[in-house]
């Protein structure tokens, strides 16, 4: 009898042992995050960095017990940089994968198409790279947030630097879509406010090569013949690399005029160019791994470097930071319910490797620091670094909500 009881007890224990974790797991199914970046084509390296940053954040959080005791699960999709593909993969993530939060976007073109579509998807999106002012401006809505520096803020910093130089006549070269044209438009607006005597060359003496351009010689000739005193460059990725190499050979960087590259501080670009990046040129970036020595940044930099053997780029930082931003919001909300998390994201402040950020409740744009610096060689690093470096506090370069054109509808 006793033996039978013992056997029964054992059986019950075994059954419990098998079923308990299962039922516990059901109560703590993973929280699903959907990431959308450019994973193929010429800009794929940006998606690769973002994926690395995202995976590192997810692994770190899972190791420390997840969010509200639930593990994170990452789903990655390729936007290919095309708006229609972008919308399609977002719908797939929301309606098929049932993700709790969306993170991503490299291209402003994709962002402008996707943000209005969020109203049907009813899922928060944390933008980490696309810089178009519209998604936290004229197109803003309840679901779209951005923790990365936007075009408006970055170009404001560019204008502050430009105002300190002797250059009074400016022109530009930028990609021929909204991003390039808006960079120039905002640069003119801000620089004119700071330094009213400044002059901008007419449209015929600006250059907007299409993104597919590989031979920039004609544009370089055009800019040099316009004889400007300063040039704002908003090209990025492979376009910027090709432009810099070809322009350098044609004497563009010989010091006849000031040069500002709004996205020249991207690790993706510096790592490819290495010693072919001219020295003493002002370049901007949304995150620079040497910009601050807080513990938070040191930990991120060291972990990232030892895991991937690369320095974290701003895109890696953006995706990494977005996961922690979501974590902070969920912990504040104490639930993963999408609408409650959105309310928690509004006004949220937290510390990221880049520094403290605060997401404005009114337009969902984060106040975050802009980092600019002059390219310079340092034997300690295989890539050019920024020295001297300037950090512009987010509060100083972010326009007031009234100027963004954002009308948030509940």
């Amino acid at each position, binding site marked *: 009898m006793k033996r039978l009881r013992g056997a029964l007890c054992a059986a019950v224990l075994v059954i419990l042992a098998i079923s308990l974790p299962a039922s516990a797991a059901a109560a703590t199914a993973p929280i699903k995050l959907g990431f959308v970046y450019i*994973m*193929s*084509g*010429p*800009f*794929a*390296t940006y*998606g*690769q960095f973002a994926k690395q940053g995202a995976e590192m954040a997810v692994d770190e959080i899972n190791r420390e017990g997840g969010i509200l005791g639930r593990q994170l699960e990452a789903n990655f999709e390729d936007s290919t940089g095309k708006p229609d593909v972008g919308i399609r993969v977002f719908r797939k993530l929301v309606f098929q994968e049932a993700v709790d939060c969306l993170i991503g976007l490299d291209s402003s073109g994709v962002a402008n198409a996707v943000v209005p579509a969020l109203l049907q998807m009813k899922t928060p999106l944390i933008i980490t790279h696309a810089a178009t002012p519209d998604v936290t401006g004229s197109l803003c809505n309840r679901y779209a947030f951005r923790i990365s520096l936007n075009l408006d803020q970055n170009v404001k910093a560019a204008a502050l630097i430009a105002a300190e130089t002797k250059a009074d006549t400016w022109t530009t070269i930028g990609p*021929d879509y909204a991003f390039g044209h808006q960079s120039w438009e905002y640069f003119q607006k801000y620089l004119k406010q700071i330094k009213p005597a400044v002059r901008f060359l007419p*449209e*015929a003496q600006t*250059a*907007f*090569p*299409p993104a*597919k*351009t*590989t*031979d920039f*010689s*004609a*544009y370089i*000739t*055009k800019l*040099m*013949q316009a004889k400007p005193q300063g040039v704002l460059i908003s090209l990025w*990725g*492979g376009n910027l*690399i*090709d432009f810099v*190499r*070809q322009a350098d*050979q*044609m*004497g563009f960087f*010989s010091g006849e005029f000031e040069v500002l590259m709004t996205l020249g501080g991207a690790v*993706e*670009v510096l*790592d*490819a*160019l*290495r010693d*072919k990046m001219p020295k003493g040129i002002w370049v901007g970036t949304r995150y620079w791994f040497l910009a601050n020595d807080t513990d938070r940044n040191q930990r991120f930099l060291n972990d990232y470097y030892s895991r991937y053997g690369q320095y974290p780029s701003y895109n890696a930082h953006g995706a990494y930071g977005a996961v922690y931003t979501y974590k902070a919001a969920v912990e504040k909300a104490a639930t993963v319910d999408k609408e409650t998390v959105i309310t928690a994201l509004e006004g949220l402040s937290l510390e990221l490797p880049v520094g403290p950020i605060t997401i404005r409740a009114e337009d969902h744009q984060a106040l975050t620091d802009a980092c600019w610096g002059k390219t310079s060689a340092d034997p300690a690093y295989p890539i050019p670094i920024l020295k001297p470096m300037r950090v512009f506090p987010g509060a100083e370069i972010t326009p007031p909500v009234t100027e963004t054109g954002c009308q948030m509808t509940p």
Partner: protein
Amino acid sequence: METLAINMLNGLSWGMLLFLISMGLTTVFGVLGVLNFAHGALFMLGAYLCMQIMRIVPSFWLGLALGPLLVAALGVVVERFLLRRVYARDVSFQLLLTFAILLVLDDAVRLLWGPAYHVVEAPPLLAGVFPLFGHTYPVYRLFLIVVGPLVGLGLWFFFQFTRWGRIVRAAALDREMAEGIGVRVPLLFTAVFALGAWLAALGGALAAPQQSLAPSMGDRIIIESFIVVVIGGLGSFPGAFVGALFLGLLESFGTVFAGQAQMALPYLLLAVVLLVRPRGFFGREA
């Protein structure tokens, strides 16, 4: 004068690179009757293989010599085992097949070399600059201006005056008749496709010191090559030359003088040629 000269050089160097790539496209179409969508991917592969060879032996010249040969060998495999099966079928099969090869090669490059941008150094002999109107101009661009016509002339001579060239032209003109007099046409087609692949890869290796290497880099140049081939006349060598020259100069002068309208110029040119002379400048009457 200054503007004219610099724009001339800009346009010519770009045009001659386009010419090299277009020659391969137009030869394959002229002889095999295949519009090769994968041509841009072969261009990309030429650039990446040149870079890979330079990592082992740091010599651009070796990369330039060997890279395109390896791509030509791949061309042999593609023609022999894939393309040959669809000659008899509807033309859409050829388009689908070459498009599929393009996608496979794009992804293969991304898997092998990663998505990062790569930069190839010009050889020391050509890496310098020379003074021009108070600024500098890269020697490498002059090299491009010279090498395009040289390769073109060599090929033209081959097709025009050698026994093998005549056989190729005969097979292009009338496949059955050529077979009837004992030409081994399948072998000939393999060789011509390999030649086309070699030309694409040569263009890629030559472009590498000028433009960054990234996945799908061939997609951008292939559109312009198609325009060159169509305005010059499909299958015509002199056509490719004139078309490339025209497009190169149009783009360089257009950029400086036409402002934002410049982007429409190549397509406008294409539309006008198609309306006025649908077979292109040098195309044969259909």
